[in-house]
């Protein structure tokens, strides 16, 4: 910083022809009284002079001193006249002015405002963005001048807003009216709160301006509400894609084998812990490639969950075909064993799974609407898995066998489909998809032994609503339930939303007991 300053000073000192600052104003910077200093800082800021930047910077760095009746800048063993920037003899006993926190704050915003006149457009843009939240009425002339000089359209738009905000306190009603009109086109909560005082008689004596302000607040409100609802729909979409990942696996296992797998949520947990395991491995052995642990976790999670699924199917489930209620109880027992195993292996506490750096942050669509990357990626991931499952079920031999067994098990067996092996494969596939769901879930929620329990009821609701063994049904039901429940949550709170959704499902089943996409035919029962 000192180096930068030095270069700046050298430049200035080589150009003595430049107009110097008002010496009295600069002298006032070192005054006794804080209010005098603040006034001086503000006046210097108004000049928008590069020299003012130099002086204020020196003050912020504690190198501005008072020597006799002159303000001087002392840098190491050199001294300069503060107003003109000309080198002078080192004064005998310079006095340092007190720079308290109030002055420091004032200096910081003054320097930020002066950056609006920087030669570099990116610096100006950053400064204009920063200014949006801290506009004061005194800045109006400064902003007007910056607006005059500005050529970049984006910065110009920002400055117009800031200028309008600063102008709201203008004594001229016409200027205020113009400012309100300019602000009505925005959609940010901060500007709304700036406009609010103007909607009351106490805050705004002029009727015309007040009505305009009321209209502006209304316009901003409606735009905010739209953004909020879009945000809700988006988080509903991402909840829906998580539900979809959970329900796809269930739809396959329930559709093919007619069994309800209560341990399905725990297969999600297996996938999430597999992700955690990959993260730990990468941290230990490949710390430079840590961002890649997530793609690496996808196959690991799929196969570990599928393996657990195969073991479950071979040891327990295959002995219970045709006894669905018993399968339900046995798989519940399996889920308890899996939960307790996770507790014993990884501890009862939640483990920490970090987002890779490329998943943090988001796209800002509107000032109060941010679409986080991790949710966008999860939606994309769910689509990818859906496409994969669709291809597998409709374009491969395995998929054809699975569909054959779903439709008519004895007939499929008669024409040579190895039904028992298909059962195992289908169950492993369903379990593997649950594992993939676990990878996605690990990125947006806690990873712990009980994590699967929260999703199991919802996943079943998706299967119930969507209809058995139907991919399309599962997709529509998952997205519908996700978006519907998030929208309801915004209006009525999470608990009421959950209860009303349950009631809706019960009513829905009255009308369509087989789900949205019912299988037609004699084997429906």
């Amino acid at each position, binding site marked *: 910083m000192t180096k930068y300053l030095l270069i700046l000073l050298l430049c200035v000192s080589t150009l003595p022809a430049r107009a110097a600052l008002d010496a009295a104003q600069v002298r006032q910077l070192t005054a006794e009284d804080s209010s005098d200093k603040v006034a001086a800082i503000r006046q210097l800021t108004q000049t928008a002079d590069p020299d003012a930047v130099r002086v204020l910077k020196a003050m912020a760095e504690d190198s501005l001193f008072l020597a006799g009746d002159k303000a001087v800048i002392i840098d190491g063993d050199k001294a300069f006249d503060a107003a003109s920037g000309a080198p002078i003899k080192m004064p005998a006993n310079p006095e340092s002015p007190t720079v308290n926190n109030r002055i420091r704050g004032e200096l910081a915003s003054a320097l930020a405002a002066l950056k609006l006149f920087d030669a570099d457009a990116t610096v100006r843009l950053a400064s204009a963005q920063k200014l949006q939240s801290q506009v004061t009425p005194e800045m109006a002339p400064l902003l007007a001048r910056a607006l005059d000089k500005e050529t970049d359209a984006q910065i110009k738009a920002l400055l117009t807003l800031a200028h309008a905000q600063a102008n709201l306190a203008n004594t001229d009603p016409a200027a205020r009216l113009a400012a309100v009109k300019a602000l009505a086109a925005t959609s940010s909560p901060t500007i709304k709160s700036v406009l609010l005082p103007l909607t009351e008689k106490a805050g705004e004596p002029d009727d015309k301006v007040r009505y305009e302000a009321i209209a502006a607040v209304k316009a901003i409100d409606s735009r905010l509400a739209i953004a909020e609802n879009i945000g809700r729909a988006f988080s509903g979409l991402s909840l829906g894609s998580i539900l979809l990942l959970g329900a796809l696996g269930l739809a396959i296992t329930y559709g093919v084998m007619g069994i309800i797998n209560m341990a399905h949520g725990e297969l999600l947990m297996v996938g999430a812990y597999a992700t955690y395991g990959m993260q730990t491995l990468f941290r230990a052995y490949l710390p430079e490639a840590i961002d890649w642990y997530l793609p690496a976790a996808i196959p690991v999670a799929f196969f570990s969950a599928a393996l657990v699924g195969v073991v479950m199917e071979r040891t327990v489930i295959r002995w219970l075909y045709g006894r669905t209620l018993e399968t339900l109880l046995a798989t519940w027992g399996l889920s308890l064993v899996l939960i307790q195993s996770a507790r014993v292996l990884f501890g009862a506490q939640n483990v920490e799974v970090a987002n890779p750096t490329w998943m943090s942050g988001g796209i800002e669509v509107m000032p109060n609407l941010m679409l986080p990357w991790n949710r966008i990626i999860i939606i994309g991931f769910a689509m990818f898995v859906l496409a994969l499952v669709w291809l597998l079920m409709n374009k491969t031999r395995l998929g054809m066998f699975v569909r054959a067994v779903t439709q008519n098990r004895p007939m499929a067996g008669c024409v040579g489909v190895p039904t028992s092996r298909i059962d195992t494969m289908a169950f492993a596939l369903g379990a593997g998809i649950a594992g993939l769901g676990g990878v996605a879930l690990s990125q947006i929620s806690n990873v712990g032994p009980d994590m699967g329990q929260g999703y199991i009821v919802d996943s079943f609701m998706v299967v119930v609503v969507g209809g058995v063994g139907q991919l399309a049904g599962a997709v529509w039901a998952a997205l519908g339930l996700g978006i519907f429940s998030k929208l309801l949550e915004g209006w009525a709170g999470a608990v009421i939303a959950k209860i009303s959704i349950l009631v809706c499902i019960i009513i829905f089943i009255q009308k369509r*007991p087989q789900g949205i996409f019912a299988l037609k035919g004699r084997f429906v029962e």
Partner: protein
Amino acid sequence: MHKPLTLRILSSLDGKSWAALGAFLALALLVVPVLNLGTAEDSAFHISAYAITLIGKIMCYALVAIAMDLIWGYGGILSLGHGLFFALGGYAFGMYLMRQIGRDGSYGADIPDFMVFLDWKEIPWFWSGSDSFGWVALLVVLVPALVAFVFGYFAFRSRIKGVYFSIITQALTYAAMLLFFRNETGFGGNNGFTDFKRVLGHTITSPETRLVLFGLTALFLAATLIFAAWLVKSKFGRVLTAIRDAESRVMFIGYNPLWYKLTIWVISAVICGIAGALYVPQVGIINPSEMSPANSIEIAIWVAVGGRGTLIGPIIGAFVVNLAKSWFTVSFPEYWLFFLGLLFIVVTLMLPQGLVGLWKKLQEKNASRKGTAA
């Protein structure tokens, strides 16, 4: 079929069973009080207060197990939401117990402590009358019955059955749990009801009150058993079993399964509610975790362990599983879930008829061996 009702009830159990029931009641109403109050604490025959509370609690569970058996074992409908009816009965009676605290709560107010905490000024409308024992006793029966009727009517009318029904009942109790967790619902939120002081004016923790509650539970258990035995042997019970085994055929004969299913469903819910009401004063607390899906599914395993489709099975199951639970959670808390999980798996895989079925099988084997020997 012109036998009087009392005779029909008498003939619903055989002589041996009546004798066993009489022995059980004598034990619960005479021997246990004497051994609890009349012996010194260090005597080998002394029954501790802890044991009485534990057995009393398990008897309440046994009631729930019978209720579950009626709907699952005889009706073929697996409910994963019976914890809800149990908790509703418990909450209804808990309201009365909360009102009995009077001004002895930590805030010394006329309304229960948690309402003071919520800054409520007076009792909300759904609490009105909760200081009257009679009204609350009615609520214990009516609330579970009403919830069960409304839910069951819609569910059975649209012929939801099998796993679909099970899943929906699970969602039902889950939603209710979330509802009761909210403070604004007006039932104490997370903490539920606790710190009871009196019941009908008697101190709730006194040994005498405890014994009376214990005796009442035993009496009600015996009465429920007799009622259930009569019910499943009546014409109603036979149609119900027929619906379980072949619903379509029963419909073709001309019965409407809806009302049979609904009746047994409501009866089952009411028994659960009463069990909950007996449970709360003995255990001294009721909170929303009683409605958690895991609790409700555990009820099914009691019945499965004992043997469904029999009446003594659920009682045996409730005792075996819960005694094992209190032993495990004290000695090996780590392994309880493993044990419970394996129990679910082993019972469904190896013992579809439960312990009672195993016993019968062993007896048959013995008999046939004797038969071949002779």
